[in-house]
């Protein structure tokens, strides 16, 4: 691939921070700050101009869009912002474009040129579907960044690549990796299968995310501190400026959380200006772990679900059986659990995961510091082949009337298995569409078309012919098309039933 030779830049657009890296490592893009990243903030200045990054930090709350990335995750198109003419609904994509443009500009100034000659690899949460990926892609392209869908990489896959890239010994044996990426806003999980003599073929077996991470733990610690203060005879509700005290406590919660990653206890010395009197309480790592425990339990449930999906992708077992598999069976066979994101500095995260997995499973940082794993992996991803078997990167269309009419039989990045299917314990799990779902004509002749977004042609066959161009005897009654998580394809049309498979996918049964 010639694209791989062009200078590559990784861009990690996170919920709270945005980072840029070249193949050599992180490129600091902070402006007028000591941090190497740019805050993921955009807003409107008093004169009505859009400002992104640190300059937006000092804007009044109403003029600011925080956690703008969540608007894509949650499917919101507009955000209400105060502009000089009054409150207005602003298209979030336009704000994201401004943020990415600013990040690109800074990256170009500090390091490799981010222009037509280079290639930008953009990360996205593994849980995003095709529409969500195209939204971010469109915003990046309007920011004049040289990106295409094929250079958009799932964030946990990037974190995995950051780790793989530092491994010097390759056994050639397939590796099973779980990526646990816990940042400020979200926990992103992925189960990867890595193959090839140099472990350069990375395949996603399962990926999902939950919107509970660092910010939520900060809230929980602040609530716990509230109780500790009450024990010390300080009632926050009785304090004159209560909101100010709460903000102070929340900041103290975050600082204490971060310091407790390297110490067993930390003092919290109250400000008499804020609380009306001086007081000192000591908070321990044990207390923090107790508050964190229910969060980690939910995180582990999510890990279990991701492992279930991975099992469905690889085995012929019924979902009914898999949905009932106990955790100690689900966690078997994982070679390494990779920790990514700032929250993974907390020792309790590693401890819990070490308890959860078998003793032969290594639990390691994807990179040190773990906040940089995604962006560094993105910049390095050019050397790797990545395939998402859980959300395949191709469309399957059925066209007739010389291509004048068509239906989308499978839309790229749609999960092949829905969580609800597993929950119901359905057998024979697969993605499937029939003639009536698609409102096909009663009869006539059509053809299958495959559109690949991986940057390369998809190799897939059916009835021992190419999937792309395969003739279809149209029938609204009989037509059915299925893709199985292991790569098998089945199509029934007016003429019969045809079996096929995606040849590019890892054959997980064949070691």
């Amino acid at each position, binding site marked *: 691939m010639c694209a791989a030779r062009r200078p590559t830049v990784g861009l990690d657009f996170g919920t709270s921070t945005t980072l840029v890296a070249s193949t050599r*490592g992180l*490129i*600091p893009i902070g402006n007028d700050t*000591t941090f190497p990243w740019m805050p993921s903030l955009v807003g409107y200045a008093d004169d009505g101009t859009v400002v992104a990054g640190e300059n937006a930090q000092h804007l009044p709350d109403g003029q600011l869009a925080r956690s703008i990335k969540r608007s894509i995750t949650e499917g919101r198109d507009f955000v209400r912002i105060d502009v000089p003419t009054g409150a207005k609904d602003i298209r979030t994509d336009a704000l994201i474009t401004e943020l990415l443009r600013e990040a690109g500009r800074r990256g170009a100034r500090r390091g490799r040129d981010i222009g037509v000659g280079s290639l930008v690899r953009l990360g996205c949460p593994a849980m995003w579907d095709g529409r969500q990926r195209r939204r971010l892609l469109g915003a990046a392209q309007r920011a004049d960044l040289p990106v295409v869908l094929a250079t958009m990489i799932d964030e946990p896959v990037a974190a995995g690549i950051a780790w793989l890239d530092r491994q010097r010994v390759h056994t050639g044996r397939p590796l099973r990796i779980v990526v646990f990426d816990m940042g400020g806003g979200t926990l992103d999980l992925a189960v990867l299968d890595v193959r090839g003599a140099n472990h350069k073929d990375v395949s996603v077996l399962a990926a999902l995310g939950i919107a509970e991470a660092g910010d939520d733990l900060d809230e929980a610690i602040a609530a716990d501190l509230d109780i500790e203060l009450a024990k010390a005879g300080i009632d926050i509700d009785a304090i004159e400026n209560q909101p100010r005290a709460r903000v102070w406590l929340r900041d103290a919660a975050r600082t204490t959380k971060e*310091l407790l990653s390297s*110490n067993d206890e*930390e*003092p919290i010395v109250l400000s*008499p200006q804020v609380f009306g009197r001086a007081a000192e309480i000591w908070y321990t790592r044990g207390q923090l772990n107790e508050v964190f425990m229910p969060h980690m339990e939910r995180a582990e449930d999510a890990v279990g679900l991701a492992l279930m999906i991975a099992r469905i992708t690889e085995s012929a077992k019924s979902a009914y059986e898999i949905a009932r598999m106990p955790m100690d069976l689900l966690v078997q066979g994982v070679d390494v659990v990779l920790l990514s994101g700032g929250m993974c500095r907390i020792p309790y995260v590693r401890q819990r995961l070490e308890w959860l997995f078998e003793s032969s499973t290594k639990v390691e940082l994807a990179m040190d510091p773990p906040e940089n794993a995604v962006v560094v992996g993105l910049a390095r991803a050019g050397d790797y082949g990545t395939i998402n078997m859980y959300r395949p990167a191709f469309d399957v269309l059925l066209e007739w009337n010389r291509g004048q009419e068509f239906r989308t039989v499978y839309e790229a990045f749609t999960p092949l298995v829905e969580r609800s299917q597993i929950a119901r314990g359905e057998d024979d799990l697969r993605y499937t569409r029939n003639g009536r779902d698609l409102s096909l004509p009663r009869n006539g002749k059509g053809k299958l078309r495959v559109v690949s977004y991986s940057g390369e042609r998809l190799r897939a066959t059916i009835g021992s012919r190419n999937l792309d161009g395969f003739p279809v005897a149209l029938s609204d009654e009989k037509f059915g098309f299925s893709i199985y998580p292991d790569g098998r394809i089945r199509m029934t049309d007016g003429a019969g039933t045809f079996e096929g498979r995606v040849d590019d996918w890892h054959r997980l049964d064949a070691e």
Partner: protein
Amino acid sequence: MAALFATDPSAAVLRVVREAGTAVSATEIKQALRAAGVSAFDKRTWNRLQKKLRVHDHIIVEPGYRYMWVAEPVVPPAADAFEQIVRSVGGRIKRAHAEVIRQALADAPYMSEIAARQRQAVLDGVRALAELASEVEELTVNQASTRAMIHRVRSRVKLAGLEPIERAGDSTVFDRKRHEPIGPSIDDGAHVIVVRPGYRWKTPHDDVLVSRACVQE
């Protein structure tokens, strides 16, 4: 042309290529010279002329050894230019010398990045220092206990990889590798009191003694 060839044969060859306006082969150049009245010349003369032509700034060599005149000299990327030089000197160059230059050329486009990273490393240290300073001031005004104060100072410097040597006020036995006497020298093994702690800077790759602990007998 014949006169020019007689005084400066290279210039004559160049003129032929320039006036051709397109890429020309060696045979075509020789034909053009003959047509302009240049008398026959031997193979050695031509080889010498061809060598000069090949390295001329305004000449590019196209596939099939066709020569073309370009108005603006083509400047190849430094790495390509270096590889051409290596090729043209054949084996008469030390491998290590070529490698060292290749590495420098590969790093060159990353210089601004390297500079930005170095600056970042300094900023990381400065931020840690500023956080420590503001925290100490805040704790002092908020009447923090001595224990809280010392604990927080040690937490902050620990984040920067600093590991304390001893604790102020503790008593211990003298070890010249870790301790610095205040005043006259002290024998190893003598009982001492720590006046001020020292620090080591420890990372996975480094272990540096920043300062010894100050002690007195």
